[in-house]
């Protein structure tokens, strides 16, 4: 099972510049990977190419065994007619009920499941939304700033839990936090914009797991690599 992009180029109609050009990468192994780069560099656009929402690109995107790619983003909402708990109930396959309860607790949502989605704080909404995706079948889950409005501690707890719980799945995590992606991700696809070639380089992350020791120097090395790659 893999996902590979070869020489992708994208230009929106009526715009002057390429968002990216000659963009290539390969995700060959399951793991928690990041898509990183400055605002406006094309992360969301690449995600939409992968899920098939954008067709007007050139180049090649190939995958094997990766039938189900889910794309989640931070502006999604749940319908307003019943509580978060009831909605989760409905979209959880029976076999995953205990997993759901476990996630609810790790995500810090126990006290909120009786509430309507619209009454939640922004970070709470982020978490509820991501949680429901994790209960679905997927081979690849793209998380487009899915935790952007959550505090750092909770975020790390959540990511670590996901890594423990889904060793066989592929993740593509879009975030603007260098420390976080350096520390937690397996590979970091750093986008560099359409003016540079290649438009992307892949930096190996520290891929920190629950309970591991973390070498500060190594982490800083990775962060530096990422910063260098994007500039």
């Amino acid at each position, binding site marked *: 099972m893999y996902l590979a992009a070869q020489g992708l180029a994208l230009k929106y109609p009526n715009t002057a510049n390429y968002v990216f050009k000659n963009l290539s990468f390969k995700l060959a192994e399951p793991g928690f990977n990041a898509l990183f780069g400055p605002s406006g560099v094309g992360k969301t656009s690449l995600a939409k190419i992968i*899920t098939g929402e954008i067709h007007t690109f050139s180049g090649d995107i190939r995958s094997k065994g990766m039938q189900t790619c*889910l*794309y*989640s*983003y931070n*502006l*999604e*909402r*749940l*319908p*307003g*007619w*019943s*509580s978060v708990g009831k909605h989760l109930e409905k*979209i959880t396959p029976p076999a995953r009920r205990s997993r759901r309860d476990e996630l609810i607790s790790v995500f810090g949502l126990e006290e909120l499941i*009786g*509430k*309507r989605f619209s009454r939640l704080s922004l970070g709470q909404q982020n978490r509820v*939304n991501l949680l*429901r*995706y994790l209960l*679905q079948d997927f081979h690849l889950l793209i998380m487009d700033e899915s935790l952007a409005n959550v505090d750092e501690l909770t975020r790390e707890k959540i990511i670590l839990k996901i890594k423990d719980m889904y060793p066989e799945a592929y993740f593509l995590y879009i975030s603007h936090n260098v420390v976080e992606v350096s520390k937690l991700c397996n590979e970091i696809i750093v986008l560099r914009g359409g003016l540079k070639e290649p438009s992307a380089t892949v930096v190996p992350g520290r891929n920190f797991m629950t309970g591991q020791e973390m070498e500060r120097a190594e982490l800083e090395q990775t962060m530096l690599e990422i910063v260098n790659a994007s500039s």
Partner: protein
Amino acid sequence: MLLHRRIYQFFIIYLLAVAFLFLIKYGLDLSDYVIPGPVDVWHTGTREFSRYFSDVMNTMMVAVIGQVISIFLALLVGITGRQATWIGSFTKAAAYNVQAYPIVALAPIIFILLGDGIISRLLIAAMICYFPLLLSVIGIMSEPISDIEHFYRVTGRMRWQLEVKIRAFENMNKLTTVVAGSATLAMAGTIVAEFIAANAGIGYSIRIALFQSDLAKILIALFLIGITLSVYQGLLEVIGYLIEKGWAAK
């Protein structure tokens, strides 16, 4: 409170309109047979009140049923017609076309097919009332709410019922406005049906009053129609408000 307001607002409007008529009457010095005088209107009112009132109630009943039917019809067509498919667009075209024909031209065909009686009356009321509902429902139903629908779509959970529910819920305000507003159309529709089919209700009474050229009676009928409708509409609005509150609450 809403109800309250509706009613006294109606009184103001009615009195203004009647005052305006009298102004014209006395301003242009028109004789009583063109525009009846206040005394005549008052006498006609006291004389015909209870009879017209029961006529209006009769009409109202049909109108309410007609409205319910047309809400269903509009939802049905609106939900089918929301899709950008051929069948969706065909349903819409059919629904629009039927509406384009003035009821007076269709009436003879309706009577040939359905005979007289309550069915024809209901059908005509529903036809007049459903179209505006339909327009709103189609407008609402054909606009995706992607923030909410995305999840269901990508996880393959989207059913048309869910789609409809999401869009209806997010546009609840607009829907209740239109439903409450369409009450007036149902009423007007029923009256027209009674007028051309001439069998019962206030439409029938208006027809006779027109035949007798009795404007005083028409003014009384309009008064009763207006007041009844204000009450009904006020009630609908209160109900809509409660439903909305109930659905959104917790």
